[in-house]
């Protein structure tokens, strides 16, 4: 499925300053792997050494947190939007 991944500002150094990147993937895991292929270095920011999403990384599919769906196995439909959002807002 062709989906759009929205990239937060602090990660745009890996996407060559693009706010969105189109990738192919049947589920979130595949889409994020494709994202890393397209934007090398992205994976090391999103995942820990054990291959799990870092604690503060929230992934949404069409505004729904994947924690409340099927996690990284959440399947995707054509033109779905994946958002990567840190669990903070620079809260000052």
């Amino acid at each position, binding site marked *: 499925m062709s989906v759009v991944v929205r990239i937060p500002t602090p990660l745009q150094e890996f996407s060559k300053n693009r706010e969105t990147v189109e990738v192919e993937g049947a589920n979130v895991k595949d889409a994020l792997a494709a994202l890393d292929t397209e934007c090398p270095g992205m994976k090391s920011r999103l995942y820990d050494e054990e291959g799990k999403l870092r*604690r503060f990384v929230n992934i949404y599919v069409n505004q729904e947190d994947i924690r409340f769906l099927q996690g990284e196995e959440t399947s995707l439909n054509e033109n779905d939007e994946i958002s990567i959002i840190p669990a903070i*807002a620079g809260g*000052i």
Partner: protein
Amino acid sequence: MSRVEMESSVKPFKDVDKSQILKLIGNTPLLKVELFRDEFPEVEVYGKAEWFNPGGSVKDRPAFNMVKEGIKSGALRPGKVLLDSTSGNTGIAYAMVGAALDIPVTLVIPENATSERIETLKGYGADLIYSSPMEGSDGAQRLARKLYEENPDAYFMPCQYDNSFNPLAHEKTTAVEILEQTDGRVEHFVASLGTTGTLVGTGRGLKKNKPEVKVHAVMPSEPFHGLEGMKHIPSSIRPGIYDDLVHDNLILADTESSYDFAEKISREEGLFVGHSAGAALVGVREVAKSIKKGVIVTIFPDGGDRYLST
């Protein structure tokens, strides 16, 4: 209605000096930290428990100071709304001060601020405008600035990142308290960088009174981090109040180690601190490792209850 009639019909602010709740800002406890005692037995570590402020964080100090100065200068007067960008503690502090003094408050806050923060702000009666979660605090700052520039007469915008009364609050209160509470024995001061007001102001206040004090700043180790309240300065809008000459050392803290220290001190010492306090402890450990002997004071900006949903 004439301008005079309009101004006289506007509700006046309450008297700053008569507010019971605002009198409780500052004079927070300095707690002994045992976390590193076994590893570094000759290093004494103390943390200022800033969650004891009435608004729940260190930000009560600069927020109140900026508001007081605004009232004193006339820039903040009845009829105006206090507007600023903040996804958390400063907003809560403004909201509390606003509620206590009858000052209307509007805050621009990123949509992905924690639910605890958002509900607390609403609880104090603040109006919220949401900015893009993809742009973090920089996005909120830009949107607040845009709103202000579209209608400057309607707003008082303290601009916590650029307002010298932010660090001045710490120079006049936090630093003074640390010197008193340690009987002048403080040798090293460690603080996390956000607006940088705490580090800059407290650092200045300490060095003015005891020039040999070493000041250590702690920053997130990468632009993409999970440390609410902290700023990776090289990749974001540099705060106008930031003075990198104040600190003698800059330590980088990764998110996971910071979370681990926050959890560790909560479970082992009953100090339920927030994530930026965890980052400060990463810094404290680096300093302790380097000095082997001495007295370190750090700031615990807020409590862990503000991070329950993350």
